[in-house]
């Protein structure tokens, strides 16, 4: 048995129907696509064109596919919890405590690490290099490694549904509960390794985009001329690079406690769980802004485009973003005002927290003044933005309330807090990603998404959000703590039933996302984006074909002005092409996939204490890195003739649309 460490047949989910159901659904979700791909003999194509790709656009698409899959998985958790709480007055409900605990843990872990992070990383990947007029990111191979490490982390969480169990310690994994004494199973280890493996991926992404944005911008594009989405990405990347190491360290320390019997955070022998809370939130609070700043960038782009005006107060927006990024490192203690700090400490952190409301308020007003004197068309992306503004300020208000230490003493750990952070993360971050998807989809795929279904998505999510979370604010005022599997207070139940109805609306909204994709793919011929500029855009990503050729731009555009592409169109300088010269791009490589698989195996082996396999995986990782680093870089070369033939269809469409005049050279 030692050959397989802790792994035995008992790890299989035959112990309850809920666990079996979860395992079967997970297996089907993996098997059905695998069978489909095998049946259609698509594996070679998938491997060649997608899995091994180092093209930032394809990597971005794969990130978003992962994010949407995990959104479904995380949402199933959510609606199961809402269903449980809607019925569990004075009874067990349908979920035993152990399952309920695994579900609230995996819901939080998945939504933050494997839905939100991949979603924003995907959007950043697809758009940022285009917006700054670059051919790719600074380190395309590293980008592929990041993707596959993130996927490996997601794979570990998914595996825990079939083999073994997931953590019951909540997504924050507070010790001593998450220590070996109180959580002896493999659940917390799955959580630790999923976070560490994907955390490396996120850190590399952060570094990659800092370098990309600082080093790869089009000529003329000074920092203060960058589109706002690029600015927010830069700030987010800096936050990732500085904050994620804290998470890696704290997860590793907890892992050492659990695996090697150390005492960083245990009750005994000088361990101190308060250190865990501090370290976790030193990552955790910046993480909130990592998730939300890119969404702020998307709202900015969408508002300017659909109001057909430059952003109001561009400088203010940039400074506000930078101030938020900086301050996000100074407020972590507000997550545990109730740990017994002195009044002075609590007051300082309370005020620091509120100060963040100032730049955030500035942003809200700047977006509103961008709409002011504009010419607004209500594209679904703009609907999400308006829904965000109206709803987010409620979350801002409750956030300031929670930042007042004495009020937090009353609200902490209640569903009021749960409602608050969902109010930040759903209208704040997720609406932004969905807006980004509606807005940039044609750029990635060459046809627009069906707008009627886009509006359905917006309304279903918005109504669902209000119905699901406003009752949680109220039931928090009634004193209901979070993470409650059952309760004895009848006054709470009506609110929880309404919240469940809200979750059903969100379910409909989730289905609408996939219906929209299906309808749009079916109608793609009618909705082709032939010019590459379907919304009369302002920034450089619209100044190339949709989807762009692998090299993005046949010749690198100039970024001399803010809203560079809009200015070109105004001065009739757009679409003046010069003779292309040859372009060199890195060739595809399977190394990223292999590194991801090795990382996943390393995590799995560490979870189950299969030491030989862990060692093997570690050696394989080191070997892959050595081989990759010592081998000459393989490239693909695009000769001018090839480029011209690739550009031909787009230029023909432009001419047909009358965008290239007779006198303009092609």
């Amino acid at each position, binding site marked *: 048995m030692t050959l397989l460490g802790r792994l035995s047949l008992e790890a299989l989910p035959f112990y309850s129907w809920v666990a079996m159901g979860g395992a079967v659904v997970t297996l089907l979700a993996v098997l059905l696509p695998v069978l489909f791909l095998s049946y259609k003999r698509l594996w070679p194509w998938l491997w060649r064109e997608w899995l091994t790709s180092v093209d930032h656009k394809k990597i971005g698409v794969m990130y978003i596919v992962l994010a949407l899959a995990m959104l479904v998985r995380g949402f199933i958790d959510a609606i199961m919890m809402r269903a449980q709480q809607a019925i569990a007055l004075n009874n067990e409900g349908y979920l035993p*405590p152990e399952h309920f*605990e695994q579900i609230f843990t995996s819901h939080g872990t998945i939504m933050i690490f494997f839905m939100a992070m991949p979603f924003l990383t995907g959007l950043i990947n697809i758009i940022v290099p285009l917006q700054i007029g670059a051919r790719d990111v600074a380190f395309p191979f590293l980008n592929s490694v990041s993707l596959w490490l993130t996927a490996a982390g997601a794979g570990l969480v998914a595996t825990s549904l079939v083999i073994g169990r997931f953590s019951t310690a*909540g997504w924050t994994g*507070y*010790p*001593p*509960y998450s220590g070996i004494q*109180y959580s002896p199973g493999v659940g917390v280890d799955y959580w630790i390794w999923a976070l560490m493996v994907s955390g490396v991926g996120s850190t590399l992404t952060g570094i990659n985009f800092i370098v990309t944005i600082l080093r790869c911008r089009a000529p003329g594009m000074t920092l203060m001329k960058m589109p706002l989405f690029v600015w927010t990405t830069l700030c987010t990347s800096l936050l990732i690079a500085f904050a994620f190491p804290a998470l890696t360290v704290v997860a590793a320390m907890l892992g050492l406690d659990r695996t090697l019997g150390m005492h960083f955070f245990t*009750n*005994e022998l*000088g361990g101190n769980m*308060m250190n865990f809370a501090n370290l976790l939130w030193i990552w955790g609070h910046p993480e909130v802004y990592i998730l939300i700043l890119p969404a702020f960038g998307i709202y900015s782009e969408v508002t300017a485009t659909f109001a057909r*005006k430059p952003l*109001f*107060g561009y400088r*203010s927006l940039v400074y506000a973003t930078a101030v938020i990024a900086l301050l996000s490192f100074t407020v972590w203690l507000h997550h*545990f005002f*109730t*740990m017994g700090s002195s*009044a002075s400490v609590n*007051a300082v952190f*309370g*005020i620091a927290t509120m*100060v963040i*409301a*100032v730049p955030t*308020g*500035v942003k809200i007003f700047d977006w*509103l*003044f961008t*709409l*002011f*004197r*504009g010419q*607004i*068309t209500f594209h679904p992306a703009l609907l999400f933005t*308006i829904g965000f503004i*109206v709803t987010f300020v409620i979350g*801002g*208000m409750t956030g*300031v309330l929670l*930042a*007042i*230490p*004495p*009020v937090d*003493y*009353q*609200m*902490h*750990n*209640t569903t009021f807090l749960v409602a608050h952070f969902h109010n930040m993360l759903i209208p704040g971050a997720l609406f932004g990603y969905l807006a980004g998807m509606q807005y940039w989809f044609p750029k990635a795929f060459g046809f627009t998404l069906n707008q009627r279904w886009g509006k359905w998505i917006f309304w279903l999510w918005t109504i669902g959000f209000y119905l699901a979370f406003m009752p949680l604010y*109220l039931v928090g005022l*009634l*004193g209901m*703590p*979070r*993470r409650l599997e059952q309760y004895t207070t009848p006054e709470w139940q*009506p609110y929880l039933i*309404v919240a469940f109805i809200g979750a059903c609306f969100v379910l409909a909204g989730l289905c609408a996302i996939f219906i929209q994709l299906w309808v749009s793919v079916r109608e793609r011929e009618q909705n082709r984006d032939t010019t590459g500029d379907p919304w009369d855009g302002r920034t450089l990503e619209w100044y190339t074909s949709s989807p762009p050729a692998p090299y993005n731009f046949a010749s690198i555009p100039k970024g001399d002005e803010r809203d560079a592409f809009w200015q070109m169109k105004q001065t009739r300088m757009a679409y003046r092409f010069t003779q292309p010269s040859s372009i060199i791009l890195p060739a595809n490589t399977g190394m990223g996939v292999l590194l991801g698989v090795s990382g996943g195996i390393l995590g799995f082996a560490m979870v189950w204490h299969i030491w030989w396999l862990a060692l093997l995986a570690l050696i394989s990782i080191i070997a892959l890195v050595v081989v990759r680093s010592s081998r000459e870089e393989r490239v693909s070369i695009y000769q001018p003739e090839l480029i011209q033939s690739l550009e031909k269809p787009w230029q023909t469409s432009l001419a047909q649309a009358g965008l290239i005049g007779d006198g303009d050279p092609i």
Partner: protein
Amino acid sequence: MARLFIRSLTSAPLLHLYGLMMLCGLVVLSGCSLQSSPLLYPKGPVASTERELMLFAIAIMLTVLIPVWGLTLWCCRRYRKGGKGEYRPDWCSSTLVECGVWGGPLIIILLIGYLVVVYTFRLDPYKPLTVHSTDTTPFPVQAVALDWKWLFIYPELGIATVNELVFPQSRPLALEITSDTVMTSFMIPALGGQIYAMAGMTTHLNLIADQPGTFTGRNTQFSGTGFPQMYFSAKALPDKAFEDWLGTVRNASSMLNSAHYHQLARPNKSYAPVEYFSSVDTDLFNHILARYSAPSTALANGAL
């Protein structure tokens, strides 16, 4: 002065107005009135002040929220394509607007920031409280979080109870809190805010009940399978009733010694019934603390 201002803003008719605004029609959830909310209808001065502070902060912030909502709707209506508003494709800066945009939120945050400083010190849970500015001494109780129940030790009286915290309403309650299990959080919402309970450490909480009554208290921090059952009743009794209750406890047969404590500390999954102990080791609380203190002390105290 500020306090007077807050008082006037939290007067009864206004309170109802705020409540109305906050609920935004969500009280369509009829039959589930917020009357039962321990936070909105508190039973002690600490919780009352916390509520005042919350409602006042909401009122201040609504002065921003309402304009934001109004401006959003107005802009969307007036400046929609084909709407009445004049399209100014290049208008993107105005010093005046920028000043307002930075200044408005700044003023509000300065105002609330001032409240934070004043009230965080005033409502510091560690600060001893007095009743009606008399010299009544606080009533000390030691609370221990166990899996999954609360043990209360009354050092002044040498008794202990499980899942029932009883105190004379005329005296402020001075709690010393620790945990003999994972991190938990102690809270009696009707009387005031919560504080964590952590093994090897003591935290403090001072509360007062305005009137006699029974309030629900609980652990609010998830702590394992029995977490939903980790609640207790807190009873503030008039002096006479308290004496009667004390008599009942003193007549209880069980005594809480070290051996019995070990039995008590074992996890229970269903709700642990109320238990009374007529006597208790005076040093029990310190022994529980010492189990987790620095290694040398822990070895010395190995017995418990």
